[in-house]
């Protein structure tokens, strides 16, 4: 689906189901934008992002961490706004500004699921090294 040259992702995820699973009380303020009403609830940001698959989360600074038995940590934070249209860059920035006015310090945290990202070889060489 294309809109003004942008590719809008089909929403495969049942976002209402995800919000319910995380105990998030939300108000839809625009198509693809949800204001969280119970912002004092600590949420596992990474797990929420994984379940939403594509989103921009506007959150508080980290409030805690969830350490996994297999190594690694998930960040716990308060969620202020959830933007599910990640391709609409300006929408995420708009709500970053709105959230900043409302809550002060806000973290912009975007996520897009990419299965190709599982195994990559990433490195950087300086001039003369290669």
């Amino acid at each position: 689906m294309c809109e003004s040259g942008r590719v809008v992702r089909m929403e495969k995820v049942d976002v209402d189901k995800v919000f319910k699973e995380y105990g998030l009380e939300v108000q839809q303020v625009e198509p693809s934008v949800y204001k969280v009403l119970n912002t004092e609830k600590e949420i596992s940001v990474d797990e929420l992002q994984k379940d939403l698959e594509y989103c921009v989360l506007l959150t508080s600074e980290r409030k805690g961490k969830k350490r996994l038995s297999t190594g690694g940590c998930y960040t716990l934070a308060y969620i202020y706004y959830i933007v599910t249209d990640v391709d609409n860059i300006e929408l995420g920035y708009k709500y970053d500004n709105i959230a900043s006015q409302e809550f002060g310090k806000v973290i912009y945290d975007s996520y897009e699921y990419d299965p190709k990202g599982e195994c990559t070889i990433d490195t950087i060489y300086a001039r003369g090294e290669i």
Partner: protein
Amino acid sequence: MDTGRSELEKAANPATKAFNRESYFTKISFDISNKTVKITAKIDTGATYTVIGLEHKGLIRFKDQIQKSSMRGIAYDASGTELKLYGYVVENFRLTDEIILDKIKLFFSEDIGSKALLGMDILSLFDFQYLKEKRQNYGTFWINNYDEALKDLQARRLNKDTDYIDPILIADVEDRV
């Protein structure tokens, strides 16, 4: 008792949210124009420089101002492809819970998409260590004696009379004021 030890916490793969033993991602954050952006960077001891991809959604709004920087560099990926680097001073660079650098120059590039690599330019400023947990299949990156390292960086910064840390140049500065 952990005296002066700070953990580079392992984060989920930013593309899949999976955890693999073979890759080690960590969350960093920094401020540009009073906006805080959180990036999941891959710890890469094979990378000479720390480079942040300009196609990251949180950075696109700053792309123009970053690309106007006069601090430029060149690097190469593993296939020998040239990458254009733009140096830009960010604020409140959070490496770990205990290590926050108020101003540091980072490299940005649109040639690595939205990826981010934490390279040896920054890692080698610290005594960092990978410790494999006993009887476990995973390990943790630690930065030891970070207090000393931060004092050292501050002294070198004063000696060079700059108000930001340049990870490439700072190591060459005398640590005596």
